[in-house]
């Protein structure tokens, strides 16, 4: 039974085009380009782009520099685990073109950049958060 005091989210992989999955206890490292969304349940490390929505599951970890072209649902971890609470993982920078939803179990030790952020009580943003400005809103100079 769902708790009515909690916000609930429906994940429909077909409708949301989440066509990729990295299973629990799987570790991948390298350069990646995911066509479509990704359900991350293991560990993904490196550099890359996810052309869709990204779900970082409980106990899953994303390390490195990634660009997410959709929304991010963070239930697991972004960045390396740190020894102290005020330490930041400089190697991890995640850019989210949509909204970053950080669940109460979500932890980010890296830099999170997103157009919008929705954060639940209990979530930890140990690293910095920056608002992503729409590229179209930047002034464009035309030469005469």
């Amino acid at each position: 039974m769902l708790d009515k005091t909690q916000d609930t989210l429906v994940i429909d992989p077909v409708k949301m085009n989440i066509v990729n999955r990295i299973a629990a206890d799987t570790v991948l490292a390298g350069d990646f380009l995911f066509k479509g969304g990704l359900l991350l349940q293991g560990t993904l490390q490196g550099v890359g782009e996810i052309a869709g929505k990204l779900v970082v599951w409980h106990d899953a970890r994303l390390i490195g520099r990634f660009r997410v072209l959709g929304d991010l649902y963070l239930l697991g971890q972004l960045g390396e685990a740190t020894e102290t609470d005020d330490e930041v993982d400089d190697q991890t920078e995640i850019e989210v073109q949509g909204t970053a939803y950080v669940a109460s179990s979500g932890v980010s030790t890296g830099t999170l950049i997103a157009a919008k952020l929705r954060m639940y009580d209990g979530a930890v943003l140990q690293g910095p958060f920056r608002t992503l400005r729409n590229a179209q809103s930047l002034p464009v100079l035309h030469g005469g």
Partner: protein
Amino acid sequence: MGARKAWAHPSSAGVGHASTELSLSLVRRGSITDNFINMQDRESLDRYFTEQVVGEPFVIEMGPSVGVRREPTRGLKLHLLEGQVELLGHAARGLVSPLQGDAGLGKPVSTLALAKARRRLLAGSLLAILALWSALLWWIFQRFFAH
């Protein structure tokens, strides 16, 4: 919604997460002969593999509805108004298809707020229908009987 019961995503078996509950999927898997697909039809092939590998629809609890912090890109009032419109949209969809309107697809919603919005929407719709009906009766009376 009484038919729904909690289940665990196959990959999370044995790992207890008190904060996460997954509901029964919306589509039931049949026997292997039910899964006959046309190998030439890429769309149905993609759909089949997505359902088999990534899984069927499930519900996640994100956290307590109260105390949600937002980082707006525009003014706070506009952002909150956008949230209200979003909630009404979910409520309206839920009236047509209650199973999918239970929680937002891809956008977390409060089940409590959703139920309230649904009640308000129903009451508002009934009032609007009543007002329209009264106006129609009044117009008919004025047009044909009032002399």
